[in-house]
């Protein structure tokens, strides 16, 4: 097996970007989702509408933000609205097509933990917490989860359920009345998991070049089932890689610029 000419982050980002249809309204988180959305916007989906939870609607950043609220996002936005409106008027009202989520743990039904590892009252690791994840998981028409696959993060049982995937599966989510369809794809560093149409258990649905089913299974904390057909995903195209690397280089340069503040007064 030859060494691939791209990193796991890169193929995850490119794979996520390819899921996005031009014109879709995306509720974007920081990190890989932000890179994926902006890559898609630069490649095949120029009219992608990016909403960051900081209140920036329709932003077109030239460099990636480090935080969800960098000035770049406001400066390139169609408009900046107060945070209560982003959640009420956009997400809760059902205006978001695609939401992105990551987490510390995911279970076989796509439920997510971003609150604690260990017991809530005496945690081993206190994670950042819910943020906007529970509402994104509920209201986005569909959710893309992006996270690296390890037996601990793809867990047989969550230490804490922060956000709903398919709950206990087999229609439990729809029965709960959740307006969104839930996690239609989980993009990992091995490939893509998708819910089984009936049980809604996540199954291995696609693999990156050079990755084996066994490797993906070994990186999963539950006995990973296989989809009826496993798609072999293409490697990132040179144009995609070039655009992504240029975006990241621009970002690194921008973030390294020293700040000067005038104290005139």
């Amino acid at each position, binding site marked *: 097996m030859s060494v691939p000419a791209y990193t796991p982050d890169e193929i995850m980002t490119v794979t996520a970007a390819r899921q996005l249809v031009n014109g879709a309204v995306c509720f974007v988180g*920081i*990190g890989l989702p932000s890179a994926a959305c902006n890559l898609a916007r630069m490649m095949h989906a120029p009219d992608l509408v990016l909403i960051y939870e*900081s*209140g*920036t609607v329709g932003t077109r950043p030239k460099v990636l933000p*480090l*935080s*969800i*609220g*960098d*000035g770049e996002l*406001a*400066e390139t936005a169609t408009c*900046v609205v*107060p*945070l*209560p409106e982003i*959640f*009420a008027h956009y*997400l*809760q009202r059902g205006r978001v097509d695609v939401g992105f989520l990551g987490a510390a743990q995911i279970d076989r039904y796509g439920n997510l933990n971003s*609150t604690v590892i260990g017991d*809530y*009252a005496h*945690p*081993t*690791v*206190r*994670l*950042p*917490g*819910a*943020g*906007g*994840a*529970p*509402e994104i998981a*509920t209201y986005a028409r569909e959710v893309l989860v992006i996270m690296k696959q390890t037996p601990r993060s793809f867990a047989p049982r969550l230490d*804490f*359920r*922060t*956000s*709903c995937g398919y*709950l206990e599966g087999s229609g439990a*989510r729809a029965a*709960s*009345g*959740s*307006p969104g369809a839930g996690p239609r794809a989980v993009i990992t560093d091995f490939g893509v998991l998708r819910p089984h149409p009936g049980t809604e258990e996540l199954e291995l649905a696609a693999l990156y070049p050079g990755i084996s089913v066994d490797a993906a299974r070994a990186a999963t904390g539950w006995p990973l089932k296989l989809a009826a057909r496993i798609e072999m995903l293409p490697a990132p195209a040179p144009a995609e890689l070039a655009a992504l690397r240029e975006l990241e280089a621009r970002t690194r340069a921008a*973030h*390294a*610029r*020293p*700040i*000067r*503040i*005038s*104290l*005139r*007064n």
Partner: protein
Amino acid sequence: MQLLPLTEAIATHVHDGDSVALEGFTHLIPFAAGHEIVRLGRRNLHLIRMTPDLLYDQLIGMGCAARLTFSWGGNPGVGSLHRLRDAVERQWPRPLALSEFTHAELALAYQAGASGMSCGLMPRYGDTDLGRLPGTTLRTLRCPFTDRLLTAVPAINPDVTILHAQQIDAEGNVLIRGIVGAAKEAALAARRVLVTVEERVERLSADMNAVVLPSWLISAASIVPGGAYPSYAQGYYPRDNRFYLAWDEIARDRQAFTAWMERHVLGVPDHAALLRALGVAA
């Protein structure tokens, strides 16, 4: 509105045991005001903030807080708030009680507080462990029209909300421009409102629909250029992403953290001195 030196504004309006919201969603975070709270040695504060950020890591690490109400507590784009984690995981320097919400819930709690309401309503779907947190204040209702489940979130009315903003005019009206988060709601919900601003101007450079806090809603204001650093003030200076990255190292270790705070916060008289010491003041 009273125009006061920052030390006096904080000394007058922030007391031990107060509930204090230093707001600003990733933007206009009132670092200078927060550092003054550290210098004045305030204790047993109930800190409230959607996204605790570095400033709350500092306040918590310095032992100012007894409780934290929040919805997302990390170093955005970087990782953990190590001082927050140390307080929760190992009670250092003191135990920290948590009241945690989702962003939408906390925004609604501020909005209810700003609206003179005892609570706000949102739809309730799915089933998470958040609603089962020990001591949760959320309640479940049924919509009288659809019979669907709704979540009632109790209003938050901080004793004092502290904001950083761009400008104050001759009358004391304050302009907030750019990403506003839930700053306005947090201010209108509060019993007292403190503001630090980049500069004082004769007239705000603002359109009629701009986000402006009228003078008569503000308890005291202080002019503190760079007061949001290392976060940012739209139109004045950008976010110092390098500082946010560097903080991860500083805060990871109790001694490194304490040394940094002693040198850069306790060891300087004011924010301008901090900015000069860090080499960012021009």
